């Protein structure tokens, strides 16, 4: 019996290490701190309780599915952003990269293109998605290369990429939504089912987008807590010079985080396109700040070196639940933004207080 208990504890530890990477490499804590570490959790529970009480529709299964489906792309982006921010970077180009990769995918999947005299029909949907993902990965890689090799501040490099990618997306789509009835004469006027499935369908009653988001959460958690790369990301973000002297290839780690971010942005683009049945060059405007907010609400240090994947996921869900709940309560969209801003500040202030109070 004793044995079974210890094995259970051990597996519990492993799970804890996976889902609370901060705990594994962070401090052993007092009971209070463990409770308060869940600061964002408490905020989330409070929100859920309040909305379920205030509006009967909020707690229904279909609405919860709705929230999951609507915010899946935000979770995916925020996971990538968490890796970047722990590595002491920041990526402002995620929304634009998302738009350009989704636009490329949608155009390839629905339109005829002529390359060097050869007309290529609407491509196979999976191939189109793959190329879309490749576009995102390349954009992330370029971000990383510019920052690491060009020694340009992260903020500036990704700001440049944000404009460039948005412009590229406009060029690819000609400024029109894809697919568009305006150009539908010789083209397919709808997205292939495979793409729609990625963001707008259900598997065993669970929205596909939410499943994909969950997969990225697990991937992100594994990378941070179980791999050498993850440890190196923490080290680079915590003290770049020490990481370098300890033999970590700082440039490569930096490039890796941005490349992963590009990949996540492309996946988020597919999910969002699938849900909306359409891609356009101006989609996902402003999501870079939204996903950074989710990361910060989740307790990740904006200066790098500290953070958790689960925190970020909770941060993203708080933002999603808040938006949905306020909608149901008929709060005006203008007020919603004010409230969102106040919540971000409140959660972070509380988190900072908690850190100071329970440090050492």
């Amino acid at each position, binding site marked *: 019996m004793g044995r079974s208990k210890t094995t259970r504890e051990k597996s519990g530890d492993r799970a804890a290490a996976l889902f609370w990477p901060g705990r*594994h490499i*962070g401090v052993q804590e007092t009971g209070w701190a463990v409770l308060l570490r869940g600061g964002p959790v408490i905020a989330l529970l409070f929100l859920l309780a309040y909305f379920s009480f205030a509006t009967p529709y909020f707690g229904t299964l279909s609405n919860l599915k709705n929230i999951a489906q609507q915010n899946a792309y935000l979770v995916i982006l925020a996971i990538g952003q968490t890796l970047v921010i722990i590595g002491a970077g920041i990526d402002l180009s995620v929304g634009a990269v998302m738009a350009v990769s989704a636009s490329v995918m949608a155009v390839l999947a629905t339109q005829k293109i002529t390359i060097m005299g050869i007309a290529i029909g609407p491509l196979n949907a999976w191939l189109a998605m793959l190329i879309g993902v490749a576009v995102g990965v390349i954009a992330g890689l370029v971000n990383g290369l510019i920052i690491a090799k060009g020694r340009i501040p992260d903020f500036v490099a990704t700001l440049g990429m944000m404009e460039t990618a948005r412009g590229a997306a406009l060029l690819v789509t000609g400024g029109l939504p894809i697919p568009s009835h305006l150009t539908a004469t010789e083209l397919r006027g709808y997205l292939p089912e495979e793409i729609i499935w990625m963001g707008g369908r259900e598997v065993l009653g669970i929205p596909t987008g939410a499943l994909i988001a969950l997969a990225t959460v697990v991937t992100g958690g594994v990378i941070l807590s179980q791999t050498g790369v993850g*440890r190196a990301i*923490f080290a680079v973000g*915590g003290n770049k010079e020490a990481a370098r002297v*300890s*033999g970590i290839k700082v440039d490569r780690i930096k490039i890796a985080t941005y490349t992963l971010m590009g990949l996540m942005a492309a996946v988020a683009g597919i999910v969002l396109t699938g849900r909306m049945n359409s891609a356009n060059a101006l989609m996902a405007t402003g999501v870079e700040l939204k996903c950074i907010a989710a990361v910060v609400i989740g307790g990740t240090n904006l200066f790098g070196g500290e953070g958790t994947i689960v925190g970020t996921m909770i941060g993203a869900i708080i933002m999603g639940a808040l938006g949905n709940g306020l909608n149901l309560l008929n709060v005006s969209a203008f007020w919603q933004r004010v409230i969102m801003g106040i919540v971000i500040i409140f959660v972070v202030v509380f988190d900072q207080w908690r850190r100071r109070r329970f440090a*050492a």
Partner: protein
Amino acid sequence: MTGSSFLLQAESIDKSFPGVHALDKLDFDLKEGEVHVLLGENGAGKSTFMKIISATLPKDGGKMFIRGQEVEPISPRHARDLGIGMVYQELSLVPSLSVAENIFLGNLPKRGTGTVHWPRLFTEAHRLLDDFGVDINPRQRVGTLGMAERQLVEIAKALSMKVQILLLDEPTSALSDEERGRLFDIIHRLREIGVGTVYVSHRLDEVPQIGQRVTVLRDGKRMDTLPVEDADEDTLIRMMVGRELKEHFPKEEVKLGREILRVQGLRVKNKLNDLNLTLHEGEILGIAGLMGAGRTEFARALFGIDPIDSGKIFIDGREVTISSPWEAIELGLGYLTENRSDGLVPRLSVAANIILASLRRLCTMGFLHLRREKSLSERYVRELGIHAASLHQKVEFLSGGNQQKVALAKWLCSHSKIMIFDEPTRGIDVGSKTEVFRLMNQLVKEGVGIIMISSELPEVMAMADRILVMCRGSFSAEFGSGEATQEDILRYAVIGGE
């Protein structure tokens, strides 16, 4: 009546932090024109005491008197108005501003219109610096100054506010001997105008040079206050650690093995010329020299942090190129940095820092062996006697000596065969120093070769099998163990080779 001859008196100052009684009913006094040295191991309460005097920390109990008047400073600003000026260990200057602006920061001379009166700012700064014989251009940006000059600017800043009581917290830890001499001259000049100085230091040899009285703290209690004439090093050390250290530097003889490192003609433009050296298994090679002689630059070049312009490096007789730290680590080098903050990731745990340089070895297919991380770090924590609450404790919460041990454990864990120790004893207490030397002995016994860079001549002389003296980017002399006196080494360090 009696109080009037004392500039500052502190009576039964008490301060507790969670779990630590940092100051236990501490009495202290300072006379006009006196330098009162405060000694003690790390964590003895020196810095806490200074912070309470300067009102950076609130006290739990006790009284303070200035010239016999009871005072109760409530903020650093208030303390300054009372004539108490603190010069911090970490300097608090703004590098991008000029010397003059830094000196008068928050107190800039203004014109009637409210704008800064620039000509007056510079003339006043110039006068102030002239007054105590410092040759620094007040228009120069602080960022371009050396450490010693910054220290002097910081002191000038304190003096510009008519400070009567100057608190110096380890002001010489980053200074070369020459720079230290200049600082001491200035402190002597301040004595003449009646300024009292509380001087915290780890360097016992400074006590007779600078102080009139010395107080030793241990565990927040005052052990004794002595006139410096009665305070020889052995007495002071006994009071600090509470036990006799039989041998400060317990060097053990080790038989030298084959050559493991040879450097030929290493050159870095404007920094290092034509450096040659060899290192054997089991050897400690000391590199002595003044601050700025190029010792750290040499270590960084050898370890691949900074690029070299020419020169050959041989490891185990094979020529190698080292253009990045990871290549150096692959080749078996380890580098304990001069600055602890360059060697550790403060917000990562003890365990994570210990395995940081061995990540590659501890990964299969990119996945980290968490269990091996635990067992390895447990082993080094035990072997090195690292005092941490747990393996998960963040290193930023450890004391300086324990941080240094973690940094050391990192290189032990990566199985380094050639170790570069850059100022391994800087800023750590006597007990930890002895511990570091014990570990060095143990390492050389296992066949590791150590390059020991140190500004503490007695330490190098006691520990090294050979000493290379560096001066302005070149090696100016080489001595075998026991061949040279401190004066010999210093001469070559200051004047250079023939």
